[in-house]
């Protein structure tokens, strides 16, 4: 989640709450309302701010874990009716560093989840409940607690196995602790695991990167997220780049690294199912797939984004605001977007093309045409052109990006969005 501390004053004063966004859609008690099956929870604490990070996280010097957990539980209580009595399919607890939340608070949070939501599908192993963990903070007690609460997947932020590169990122952990964390999770009975890696770090060679990937594979992981380092505005890394403290990776090097990852991971049975995510078949992150497939999800915690019944919004990203503002438990929100047919089609293309599985074109074209007359033919023409250029694969009804195309996903989405709009709006 992104940190948006620079919102204008006025917006801060006249903020709305998630209640308005939720109640604008069909109510949870109205007949035929499809219950929301996914939930994202944001834990904003970290013990140190990594230099590349632009997620909303803070180093909590005042120890607000207790009031935060209280507040979070109130929010979950307010949100729970939208899940109805139907079982949740996926929960993802991200951050920040969720594993930094102390066990006593985790215990209360997990209790609340069990009380407020139907976790039967997750407990039966047919859902997914992921918690992001920092390798340093994983303890047997915490893993045990999580397992008992229904957690069946951990995502470990390894980023690199080479201390030098970790230092460049201002990421402080001992690489050996990644293996330890995974062991502890496995021992506790948490069956699924993922490792996050970062590449295109200044000074990193394709060979370094290959070694990181091998190290991750050797730990037996079946899911890998490989993010190329991006320089987000407002981060320490970007400031250092501007000051010329280091040379960023060449585009050529970065491309080589993409190739190294694709080839190595494919040879070991992990395919790229999304721009930055690789998994053995069946081990994909179901929660993230829900985002990319345009499913609905509820969101709790500062800066968390939600999508319900075509509405999108984002919780206000400041812990202080989150703690001090509550509309019967609902959090203050920002960037509320109402359903809009053109936007929905744009987002479907944008998220769908990131996935190997691609888009189902008949329904896309139908919805596009309904949203903007004439757009179906324009989109088809654009797709044919892209296919001709070798970036889009048209397989019957399915449009998906080729290996070359997936690295151009943004440019291609922009092309298709322009085709959706048509000339001279």
């Amino acid at each position, binding site marked *: *989640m*992104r940190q948006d501390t620079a919102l204008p004053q006025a917006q801060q004063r006249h903020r709305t709450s998630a209640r308005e966004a939720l109640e604008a859609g069909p109510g949870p008690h109205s007949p035929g309302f499809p219950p929301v099956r996914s939930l*994202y929870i944001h834990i904003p604490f970290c013990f140190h701010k990594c230099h590349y990070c632009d997620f909303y996280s803070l180093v909590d010097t005042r120890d607000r874990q207790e009031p935060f957990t209280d507040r979070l539980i109130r929010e979950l209580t307010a949100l729970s009716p939208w899940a109805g009595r139907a079982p949740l399919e996926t929960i*993802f607890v*991200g951050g920040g560093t969720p594993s930094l939340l102390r066990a006593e608070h985790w215990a209360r949070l997990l209790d609340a989840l069990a009380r407020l939501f139907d976790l039967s599908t997750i407990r039966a192993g047919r859902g997914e409940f992921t918690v992001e963990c920092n390798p340093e903070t994983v303890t047997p007690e915490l893993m045990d607690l999580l397992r008992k609460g229904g957690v069946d997947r951990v995502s470990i932020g390894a980023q690199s196995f080479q201390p030098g590169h970790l230092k460049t990122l201002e990421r402080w952990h001992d690489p050996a602790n990644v293996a330890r964390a995974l062991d502890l999770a496995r021992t506790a009975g948490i069956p699924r695991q993922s490792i996050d890696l970062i590449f295109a770090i200044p000074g990193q060679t394709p060979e370094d990167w290959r070694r990181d990937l091998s190290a991750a594979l050797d730990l037996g992981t079946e899911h890998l997220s490989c*993010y*190329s*380092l*991006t320089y987000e505005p407002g981060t320490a890394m970007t400031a250092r780049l501007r000051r010329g403290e280091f040379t960023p990776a060449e*585009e050529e090097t*970065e*491309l080589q690294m*993409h190739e190294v990852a694709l080839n190595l991971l494919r040879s070991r049975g992990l395919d790229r199912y*999304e*721009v*930055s995510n690789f998994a053995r078949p069946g081990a994909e992150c179901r929660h*993230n797939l829900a*985002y*990319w497939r345009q499913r609905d*999800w509820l*969101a709790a915690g500062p800066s968390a*984004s*939600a*999508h319900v019944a075509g509405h*999108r919004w*984002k919780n206000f990203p400041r812990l202080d605001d989150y703690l001090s503002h509550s509309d019967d438990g609902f959090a203050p929100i920002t*960037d509320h*977007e109402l359903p809009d047919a053109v*936007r929905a089609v*744009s*987002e479907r293309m*944008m*998220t769908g093309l*990131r996935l190997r599985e691609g888009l189902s074109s008949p329904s896309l074209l139908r919805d596009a045409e309904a949203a903007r007359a004439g757009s179906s033919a324009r989109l088809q023409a654009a797709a044919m052109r892209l296919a001709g*250029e070798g*970036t889009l694969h048209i397989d019957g009804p399915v449009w998906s990006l080729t290996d*070359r195309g*997936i*690295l*151009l*996903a*943004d*440019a291609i*989405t*922009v*092309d298709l*969005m*322009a085709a959706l*709009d048509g000339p*001279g709006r």
Partner: protein
Amino acid sequence: MPEPSSNPHALPRQFIRNFSIIAHIDHGKSTLADRLLQATNAVSAREAREQILDSMDIERERGITIKASAVTVFHHHKPGAKTDDLETDYEAPIDDSNPDLHRPAPGRKAAPEDHGDLHMLNFIDTPGHVDFNYEVSRALKACEGAILVVDATQGVQAQTLVNAYLAINENLHIIPVINKIDLPSARTDEVADEIEQTLGFTAEDCLLVSAKTGQGIKELLAAICEKFPAPRTQVVPQLRALIFDAVYDDYRGVIVYARVFDGKLKVGDKIRMMGIGRSFLVTEIGKMNPKPYRLPHGEIGPGETAYIVAAIRSLKDVRIGDTITLEQDPATEALPGYQPPRQMVFCDFYPATSEEGESTDFEDLRDAIEKLSLNDSSFTFAPVHSEALGFGFRCGFLGLLHMDIIQERLEREGGVEIIQTAPTVSYHVLVRGKDTVTGAGGQALRPVDPASPFRTNVPDHFQLLEVHNPADLPDMGHIEEIREPLCRVEIMTPKEYIGDIMKLCLDRRGTYKSQQFISASREMLQFEIPLAEIIYDFFDKMKGLTSGYGTMDYEVISYKPDNLIKLDILINGDPVEALATIVHRDKAEFRGRGLITRLKEQIPKHQFEIPLQAAIGGKVVARETIKAFRKNVLAKCYGGDVSRKRKLLEKQKEGKKRMKAVGSVTIPQEAFMAVLDQGD
């Protein structure tokens, strides 16, 4: 004869003075005009805003005057006095709302008559930039005198001399004024020496003034009355009035500024424009003070200037320099006229899309251009079509600054967004045979106006065509020669930069003509340089080389053949006409390389490699390649913050929509402008 003070508008000829203020830019012409208005009580000090005569916003910002305005004020002067009392000493401020009050009110300290004879001063503020010299000269035709303002810190500059020569050519009496003497850095004595050295006025001739503090203004007013000659007596009984300016007013149509030389003109007269042959009924005659007011008796006689309203709908119905006479009792011979303004610099304007995604279409652009042409008859326009940029207009301007001003006014007043192509000069192309030759759009190329002084040396069986669009250039095989406008360029520079300036001028295909001593520290260089080289970044270069101290002026003096060729720019193999230029053969490679280097910076990477080439008649003289991009995707998807990501892509999409397509390559509209930044 009525008492002068009871009807100031019936003053005898000997109490009328018509004069202009001329100066190098920023030497204080407008400020001095304000001070004179204030001193003659036309404007109270409270009311005096900065630079009253510069009325348009854009002028205020640029600090230059586009339209000459004629203003009338009244002033008492005792014959022989070297300094005058100011009306503010004895008069209450004039009430502008009532024209009948435009006469001296009963004195407080003494009766106005005690301060001398009432004089009517008609003065005309002239523009100070090279592009507008023709406006300066037409204003001067309506005057008997000129105040030549020289900045005491800057001294004599290029336009000081050029303007002074214009005034001398018109036989005007000149009062040299050294302005800004209040500044600590004023070098009054040295500047007086420079004026003597260059123009022959002695130090005693020069008045020392501060337009800022008002110092010397009383002396200047006395000198205006004392030294400037009264208007000449009439030589024919019939009305002959010279049109020296015309402006368009949304409510009253064209307002004509005229100077009466012979006869009388009054409201209700049916007038005839002798040159253009059209007649109009005069509905209003008035003056500017500086706000307009109707003349109480609706009549003006010999020696006076006034504005005239006569239900004239378009500036096209008026020709500056034309003579007004009466339909009933016409004069037989017109007053000596002027040369019509000549468009020397051309470029295309196409509709564009703003960063906010607001797009201008061709109709919007046409409306804006037509509207502006009502206000400024000295630029021309004709529709054009470009494959890359669609439908637009090819426009002609007096010079580069004029082009910038028009572009800015279109955007500001017309609310349109424009893509402008690189400027070209107007070439004369000599072709064999008399058959009609067509341009890129299939239109017949125009022969050079037979009245043009630049149409010389056209042998039998040849024709001389005007081409100002590289795309229109006929096949090289048919061309006997291409002639380009050649300028006389005067550059005033501190001595230490002479070497650099010489080199610049010679680099720009210049021919050295002469060198004139101005002062111990400065010289004036005279060169002949093709206009095409001057519009190419010359002014900025000259300023840069002289640390800002150099000044210049130029004037087209002739057309001269040279080894000129068309330089094509090819993007991905397709020639882009909007980027083509006409250049000298020896410079083609250099210019071509510069152009494609800048294009390379402007055109984003595509999914394929894009060759950029500069070519002469199919022969490539410079090339560059824009590599294909292979990655354009954001690594993370922000845990579901889809809106934010979508907005990013939408922004890119809008950016893309602002681009123009050349084959399969999309080019940002800025790229077409990039060719204008000629940083070499």
